[in-house]
């Protein structure tokens, strides 16, 4: 088992592929076809394109605050790819790659960041929770979902995300502990992107690794190269299978880096050095997967350019649709609080409608 070699206290980071797309551990490469890897690669590229597009639009003043994913695509896509169809995904707020892979429309995602609640109204069959802004609070929902699977005797697994900053919260620790006690079929993925806004990972905790926080809850953990799609896939796969077969929760630390800003409101040059960013640029998860696929002969620079072209185009079109959606309708801010809207809310709504009529 991987958790035995790369567990919390071994200080080893699980890697399958190096920075140049060279396979270091052929024995551990998951059994996916080239075509399947390529599909995952495409989702990473799509994520990147959607990101780039959002940032461009934001600079044009057409998008509001946006939290970019650039650099973290493998951590997201690799982990989400290891899930079965009916499994649940519980995001933090920076998991675009995972969302796209799990069937959330980019349109929904853009709509959310554009500032409309309908961006969190996913279709019934998409078992993905909305963004959770209060850091780490979502992990408890993930544990509850997983506990319910157990209680109902269903075999679904829940995969949940949190950032390095989130590991300092009480909610993170309570969630892991509950998961352990109730043997909940849940996989926690820390996207350790080295920063919580401006606060460097070293200032979040004296723990040498974040995965060692699993020890507190008595659950297994694994430290994986979060920029290695194969490692993330393999680590998550093992954890998901353990969970599904009754083995309970696992904590995965995906060691990665946020290449961009925290959000579009943030200026990372205030708190980190360019050299650091450059060092991590070399480890770009997309770059190395592209090198791998190219070497395998299933992909080329030309393919890549036209894919990027296509995705960028699509992203822009999706955004145009979102932009055309305009403002939130007044009734929508009232009518979704309860199954039956209580009288006082209806009245507040009607009074406001009346006001709007009068001032027109």
């Amino acid at each position, binding site marked *: 088992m991987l958790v035995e070699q790369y567990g919390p206290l071994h200080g080893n980071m699980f890697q399958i592929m190096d920075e140049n797309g060279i396979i270091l551990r052929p024995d551990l490469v998951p059994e996916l076809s080239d075509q399947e890897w390529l599909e995952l690669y495409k989702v990473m590229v799509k994520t990147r394109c959607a990101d780039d597009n959002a940032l461009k639009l934001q600079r044009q003043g057409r998008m509001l605050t946006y939290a970019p994913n650039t650099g973290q695509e493998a951590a997201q896509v690799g982990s989400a790819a290891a899930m079965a169809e009916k499994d649940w995904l519980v995001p933090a707020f920076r998991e675009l790659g995972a969302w796209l892979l799990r069937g959330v429309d980019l349109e929904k995602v853009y709509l959310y960041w554009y500032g409309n*609640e309908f961006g969190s109204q996913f279709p019934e069959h998409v078992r993905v929770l909305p963004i959770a802004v209060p850091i780490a*609070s979502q992990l408890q929902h993930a544990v509850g*979902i997983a506990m319910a699977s157990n209680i109902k005797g269903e075999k679904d697994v829940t995969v949940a995300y949190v950032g390095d900053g989130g590991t300092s919260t009480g909610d993170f620790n309570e969630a892991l502990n509950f998961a352990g006690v109730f043997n909940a079929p849940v996989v926690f993925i820390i996207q350790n992107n080295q920063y919580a806004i401006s606060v460097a990972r070293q200032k979040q905790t004296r723990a040498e690794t974040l995965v060692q926080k699993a020890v507190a809850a008595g659950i297994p953990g694994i430290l994986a190269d979060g920029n290695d799609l194969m490692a993330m896939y393999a680590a998550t796969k093992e954890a998901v299978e353990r969970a599904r077969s009754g083995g309970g929760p696992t904590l995965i630390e995906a060691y990665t880096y946020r290449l961009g800003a925290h959000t579009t409101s943030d200026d990372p040059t205030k708190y980190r050095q360019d050299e650091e960013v450059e060092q991590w640029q070399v480890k770009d998860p997309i770059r190395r997967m592209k090198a791998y696929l190219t070497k395998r002969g299933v992909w080329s620079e030309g393919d890549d350019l036209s894919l990027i072209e296509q995705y960028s185009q699509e992203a822009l079109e999706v955004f145009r649709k979102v932009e055309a959606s305009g403002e939130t309708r007044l009734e929508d801010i009232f009518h*979704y609080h309860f199954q039956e809207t209580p009288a006082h809310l209806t009245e507040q709504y009607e009074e406001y409608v009346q006001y709007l009529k009068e001032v027109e």
Partner: protein
Amino acid sequence: MAVMNLISAVNHTLDLELGRDESVVVFGEDVGLEGGVFRATVGLQQKYGEKRVFDTPLAESAIIGTAVGMAINGLRPVAEIQFSGFIYPAYNQIISHVARMRNRTRGRLSLPMVIRMPHGGGIKALEHHSESLDTLLGHIPGLKVVTPSTPYDAKGLLLSAIRDEDPVIFLEPSKIYRAFRQEVPEEDYTIPIGKAKVLREGTDVTVVSWGAYVHEVLKAAELLAEEGISAEVIDLRTISPIDRDAILESVKKTGRFVAVHEAAKSFGPGAELIALVNEGAFLYLEAPPARIAGFDVTIPIPRGEHHYFLDAQRMAYGIRKVANY
């Protein structure tokens, strides 16, 4: 019909609903093996097993946070918070998620869940065991907050709460858990959330209260009746949303209004009631609407709590002032 006190009515109702609907699960600290520190869940784990009635680790945020997840994944969790004063670690989950998930997802995810807890004071308990959360929960958009004042109401309201598609906070007045017994039908019945109940008709002044205080208010009304003051007593039953119409109807009749509550006065529930009365029945008012409320102090530990909690005499004193204004 069986005779029950409030806590046994809660126990009976949970039993009924666990038996009827297998998506119902009941959990919290000491809820399983021990059956709750107040014995609200006694016998339920034996009957329904550890999967459906269970103890949790000591972590209120996770108790509520996992309830949210369970509700999302098809269960109807009934979570117990051991005392209302220990809800605060879960406040983030309650405000940020319990109250908001439906609206956040524009109806995609609803949370049919109940958070129940002993509420209020007057039982000579330690610090933090006597808190009134009326305002702190009532002010949160997206929550329903109910509180029964009798065993009968406890059953009817709790069944409504568990069957509601939206989250309901169920505040159990611990002071009257065992104060009296009442006939409670064994069968299924519900009491609608959002409706108040006139407990005593009167013509001179409308008095609104809820939970344990209702019984003191009724005693106060007796005292006042002897003096010729006829108080109409309304049990709010639901703290949020407030049954405004019931209150206004009464105030329009009596012309006077008093809210009586345990929670601290400032920014308390009485303020909301007074505001509603102003908004809906100002021209009927023959005296300033008033509140008889807790002082703006931390609830004293036992040797001082009698200063804080109101008895019928103090209520009568305050109501009398309004009646005689």
